[in-house]
């Protein structure tokens, strides 16, 4: 469960997140929608632990435990995962090497034993197959020269292997063709479980036809301005965000 309470975040004196409150329960898929510049990606980075931002006030709890003072790797070990909007290219680091290092680093932080190579390979093959990721791609340098779709599938593969208790998906649907969208959506749906929460950040309602959300939150100017059920996404698709931007500007 992710709880964000009264979160105020700024960068260089400019407020990006303004008294933001949000709760996503275990087993829940929450969609976060909102116009460009409303602070959605900032929120995802702040949750993951990026250091560029100043946390003025507020609290982020993961499974009841405050994570704001933890390094990004410690947050990951506690079960947090962020699928990046633009996954970073890491030339020179073979994807398989990276996956094994990441998995074992998390296990080590949790006091678990390292995975044996055969055990690791078995897990990778199973998950990669479902996401149509071939062996050749796993041997290449991580994300380096990958197409947009390949990068997004690689994010989902990492999520499947790392088995987080809470995942933030930052515009994982953007830049995907219809087939890739299906593959990614199926990958996410396969990981839905009563013990895992998702925050799906998106601009478009279309992905929510495939990954059906339990709640939809609308964000504008750094705060949640409206929350509702999945029908809210349909309404937004029809009417756009104009109302929310004006409304919050006046407020």
């Amino acid at each position: 469960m992710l709880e964000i309470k009264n979160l105020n975040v700024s960068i260089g004196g400019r407020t990006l997140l303004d008294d933001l409150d949000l709760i996503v329960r275990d087993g829940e898929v929450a969609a976060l929608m909102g116009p460009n510049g409303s602070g959605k990606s900032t929120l995802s980075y702040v949750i993951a632990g990026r250091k560029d931002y100043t946390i003025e006030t507020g609290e982020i709890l993961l499974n009841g435990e405050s994570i704001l003072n933890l390094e990004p790797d410690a947050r990951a070990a506690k079960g947090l995962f962020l699928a990046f909007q633009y996954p970073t290219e890491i030339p020179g680091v073979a994807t398989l090497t990276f996956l094994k290092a990441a998995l074992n680093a998390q296990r080590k932080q949790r006091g678990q034993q390292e995975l044996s190579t055969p055990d690791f390979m078995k897990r990778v093959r199973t998950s990669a197959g479902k996401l149509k990721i071939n062996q050749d791609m796993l041997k290449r340098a991580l994300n380096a020269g990958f197409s947009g779709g390949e990068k997004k599938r690689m994010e989902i593969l990492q999520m499947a292997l790392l088995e987080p208790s809470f995942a933030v998906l930052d515009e994982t649907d953007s830049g995907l063709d219809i087939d890739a969208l299906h593959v990614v959506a199926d990958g996410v749906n396969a990981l839905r479980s009563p013990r895992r929460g998702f925050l799906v950040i998106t601009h478009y309602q279309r992905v929510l036809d495939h990954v059906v959300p339990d709640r939809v939150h609308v964000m504008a100017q750094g705060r949640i301005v409206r929350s509702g059920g999945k029908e809210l996404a349909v309404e937004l698709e029809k009417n756009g965000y104009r109302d929310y931007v004006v409304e919050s500007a006046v407020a």
Partner: protein
Amino acid sequence: MNADIIPARTPAEIFLADAFNASRGRLPGNTKVAKWRADSFGVFSASGLPHRRVEAWHYTDLRALMRDALPLAMAPSPETIDELRKEFAAAGALVRRLVLVDGFFVPELSSGLPQGINVRSLASVLSEGRPDLIALLSSQGLAAQDSIVSLNAALMQDGVVIEVAPSTLIAEPVNLIHVTASPAPTAHFSRSALIVGAGASLRLAESMHVANRAESVRAGQANACLIVSLDNGAKLAHTAMVMGTAPGGVRLESVMVRIGARAKFDSFALVAGIGLVRRQMFMRFDGAESEALLSGVSLLGGREHADTTLLVEHAAPGCVSRETFKYILDDEATGVFQGKIRVAPGAQKTDGKMLCKALLLSNFAAMNSKPELEIFSDDVACGHGATCGGLDLDQLFYLQTRGLPFAQAEALLLEAFAGELVDGIGHQGLIKVFRREVSAWLSTRNRPAAARAAIA
């Protein structure tokens, strides 16, 4: 009116002059060689140790950095050789090896050489005075102005002369091991030559070894020259592992390469765990349609200083040269890269490129990068690039969000940065050895500061 400035000689320069005068009667070679030595010392003493006003040495001011010179090394004693033999046997040392101990070629320690290679000590070649070999050994060519190369010619004590017969193909590396064994810090002056005959190919792997008994006195001074001649259609793959000298130690390496037609020269060097190192390569394409790939990685910490200076002359048409060098600099280390590509008139269709990338991990580390192109032909493609900066913060953050602690994420990125060039060596066994050294250096880096200070 201008007054001639006569710089005062430094203690090191005075010491070297005394050493030359005291030892010139004992140094190997016939009378012609003795004259060559005297002329060479004249060239050296006219300019002295190179300093910051000598353009090619601007960033490595040897006059300031090498305050004192050390006594010349003595040839290793039979006991030393015996100890080393046991040490090599115990360590399962490399086969196909040529061994220089304190700059002296020791045939008793060398072994396993393949057919088609002829090997002799420099001392015996200088005494015999075979004109073609003497001509090659004394052909300083592009290095004629370099006082360190001249000093080497004046004081060269020994070395190894390797001849590979035409059309001989040797795929597995021949190891040239430079051993430091003297129990007290000394100065080594070695000059070696490698002649690869027409159509022959060789892989030469240079490495360094510090004898157990010399562990506490690694801060010696070495001035080593390697003169390479590649005949038409010859191929040489060269690797050098320049490691294992202590702070205060000085290693000056000069590699002079002449490349014939349709030949290929491939060279990679790893510089790590050193005091002060200058590697200079002087390379000349004498024949058409040849190729040279020069690359290297320098891993520096503490107050280490590593200088790579290249002069590549395209004197024949249709040749390709690539220079790719990477530096990782921590603490107060200094890196220097100077690459010059000169395209002579008539060397049309030259394709020359150089690239230097440096990662600075500390605010007190420094990188000096100077690419130069001198082009006197009109149909050429030449380029250069240099980057200098820190690790990519986005990459670090990405890896951390996947659970890798900062130090591990950093090490993974650094290993990838250096490993790219290591993987280009083209020999699986050597790639493994070099990769291991890079990892070892990175793991030392991640020790607590106090432990690192003890090493530096």
